[in-house]
């Protein structure tokens, strides 16, 4: 394989491996744990290195994953004292651990070939140089093997415990009532997240790990609420941004991990703006439509309350309900379009349909039952204009 292909392969598999635990972290509102883990594995790596004196040793991964789990446990311990909120606990634990790592590195700067820059930022470009050679034959880059094994393990765990994970993510009470231990699921997920973080960050650096875990899952979450689709979509987003990012980095001659993150960011921005029902534009237009709907109901109720012609003049209405001219006009238009009112000589009058609707609306407001308003919209073919 050419190094080019190998780098893309490593990036893509890393992205897939991160996306799977990422989905659950996002759904369980623990996205920032990945940030904490990615920083606090530093002391684990440094200590592991002091013991083994080999940066490629698998012990490093074990030490690092262990310090990742210690982070989770520490955060929970602090949180359990009730002295500070969970996010504060996270914010207190990982900088302290990271500081210890940085100081350890700096203290032994002379005899350690370990660079904080490299740890924090990673460098995919060098990943193909570290090869796994068994009895003279070249089996490909080590990074590729590590992350593939981890992807395989998390896939297997996902398939084996899909039901339990799903249940404990969405309904902790039910899952413990049914006898699945949510605690076990929690620590299982945390261990997978830790190990994945460690393996991934070797290739792509601490910050990109966070991006690869959270961004694809968050992007997918804006598009679907189906867990299976969400996992599939986030893997897809992760892998495609990994490959896209690689080519962008080549074009710009800049850091690969930075480019992958940027592509992820652009993807998220796109979905954030244009997602069909949960995107910013969809939400804003929905909000403005709802505002007009409420105005329309207010307006019709007002008409229903006032019989005298004086009160129902178009100009007078604008003053009376205190609306801007534009808004008043758009409400009037909508009402006419929906056959709710007639306008004769600048005097507004409810049609029979409008009257019936108003009665129903009033009833709705008084009884305050949620389900009725949707039926009402359908009954009167309202708000289609």
């Amino acid at each position: 394989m050419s190094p080019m292909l190998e780098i893309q392969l490593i990036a893509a598999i890393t992205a897939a491996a991160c996306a799977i635990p990422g989905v659950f972290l996002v759904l369980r509102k623990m996205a920032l744990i990945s940030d904490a883990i990615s920083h606090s594995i530093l002391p684990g790596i440094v200590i592991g290195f002091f013991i083994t004196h080999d940066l490629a040793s698998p012990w490093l991964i074990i030490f690092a994953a262990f310090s990742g789990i210690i982070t989770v446990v520490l955060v929970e311990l602090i949180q359990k004292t009730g002295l500070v909120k969970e996010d504060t606990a996270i914010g207190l634990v990982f900088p302290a651990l990271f500081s210890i790592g940085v100081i350890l590195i700096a203290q032994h700067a002379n005899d350690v070939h370990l660079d904080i820059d490299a740890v924090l930022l990673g460098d995919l470009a060098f990943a193909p140089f570290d090869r796994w050679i068994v009895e003279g034959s070249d089996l490909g880059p080590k990074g590729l093997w590590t992350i593939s094994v981890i992807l395989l393990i998390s896939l297997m765990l996902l398939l084996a415990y899909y039901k339990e994970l799903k249940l404990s993510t969405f309904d902790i009470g039910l899952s413990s009532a049914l006898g699945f231990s949510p605690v076990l699921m929690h620590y299982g997920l945390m261990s997978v997240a830790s190990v994945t973080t460690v393996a991934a960050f070797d290739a792509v650096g601490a910050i990109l790990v966070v991006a690869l875990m959270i961004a694809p899952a968050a992007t997918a979450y804006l598009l679907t609420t189906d867990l299976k689709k969400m996992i599939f979509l986030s893997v897809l987003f992760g892998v495609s941004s990994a490959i896209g990012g690689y080519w962008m980095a080549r074009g710009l001659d800049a850091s690969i991990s930075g480019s992958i993150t940027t592509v992820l960011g652009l993807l998220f921005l796109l979905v954030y703006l244009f997602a069909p029902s949960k995107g910013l534009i969809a939400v804003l237009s929905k909000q403005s439509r709802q505002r007009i709907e409420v105005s329309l109901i207010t307006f019709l109720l007002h008409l229903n309350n006032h019989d005298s012609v004086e009160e129902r003049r178009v100009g007078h209405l604008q003053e009376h309900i205190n609306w801007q001219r534009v808004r008043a006009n758009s409400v009037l238009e909508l009402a006419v379009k929906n056959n709710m009112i007639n306008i004769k000589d600048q005097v507004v009058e409810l049609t029979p349909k409008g009257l019936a609707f108003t009665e129903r609306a009033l009833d709705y407001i008084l009884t305050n039952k949620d389900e009725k308003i949707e039926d009402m919209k359908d009954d009167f073919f309202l708000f289609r204009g």
Partner: protein
Amino acid sequence: MEITDYFTDYTLRTITLGTAVLGAICGMLGSFAVLRKQSLLGDAISHAALPGIAVAFLITGAKDANVLLLGALVSGLIGVFWIRGITTKTHLKTDTALGLILSLFFGFGMLLLTYIQKQPNANQAGLDKYLFGQAATLVESDVKLMIIVTGISLLVMLLFWKEFKLLLFDKNYAMTLGFNTKFIDGLISFFIVLAIVIGLQTVGVVLMSAMLLAPAAAARQWTNSLSVMVLLAAIFGIFSGVFGTAISASQPNLSTGPVIVLVASVFVVISFIFSPGRGVLFKQLRLVRNRRELELKKTLYFMYDIVRKHDDVSRPHSIRILNNFQGFTKSTLSKLAEKNWITIQGQSWSMTNTGFDVASNLYNKNLPES
């Protein structure tokens, strides 16, 4: 390294002053962040500031600290507003929004930084000091800027004290009183971003959040009053800065930022354990005391059950009949005697009248007399 060095060594004096001022402003504004449950906002913003530094450098081509900080400020603010946009307009939760902004902005910043490094412009070296922070590069003008910013934020905080406090603890009430909560909210966020940006050069992107959080989290344990907390947090911040600088200066190869953070973490640990009201130690002690008290009362009630069956309250009973009751030991008995609830003579005990009254009222303390 002598104590007198602090007054004679110009560089050290500057750095110490700088970290102390930074600790003060971070502690002050961090209190608001912690109380608003926005502890990790600082983490996100400090990462989000990175692309701003890179863009500012790309545009101006100069390494003027103030211009770079302005860039960081702008991009930090963009980050804050985007986080707010994500959490208010979509169903993504705060933690996801923070993680997104943090990693995406930082990645973009790294892209720009590596791009800049490839440029044929020798001026770019040293931009990465914003990543990990180098307190040693602090010069007098930096410290002056810090002092000015701290002064301004102190002034604003005092001016808007009432509004800040109200918004912090009861946003809805603040709204009904007619305060422009959006403006006040923005003002607090703006100053938090400002504090972070100011600190980037000294402690770096990664550790900045701890500077903001740790003093405030420590101060929170000692008081329930906002003004005391802000003051305490500022003091903790100052001490972290001064001690951290001193320790890192006393040894070779100790970077200042991490040491400051560790000192601040020590403050947090001490506060968590030893604070009299909320600390773990005293809480545990109270727990043990309460448990003992409960055991004592349980024993007393058991005795009361025995005594009740007899007409004479103070009739002696043998200690042996308590044997099938788990909660008693010799020391509980002597404690009960100390409280004058029972008297012990040899191998038997008898209940006093006070003991009888206490026991009969044990379980109906909360009940109205009926």
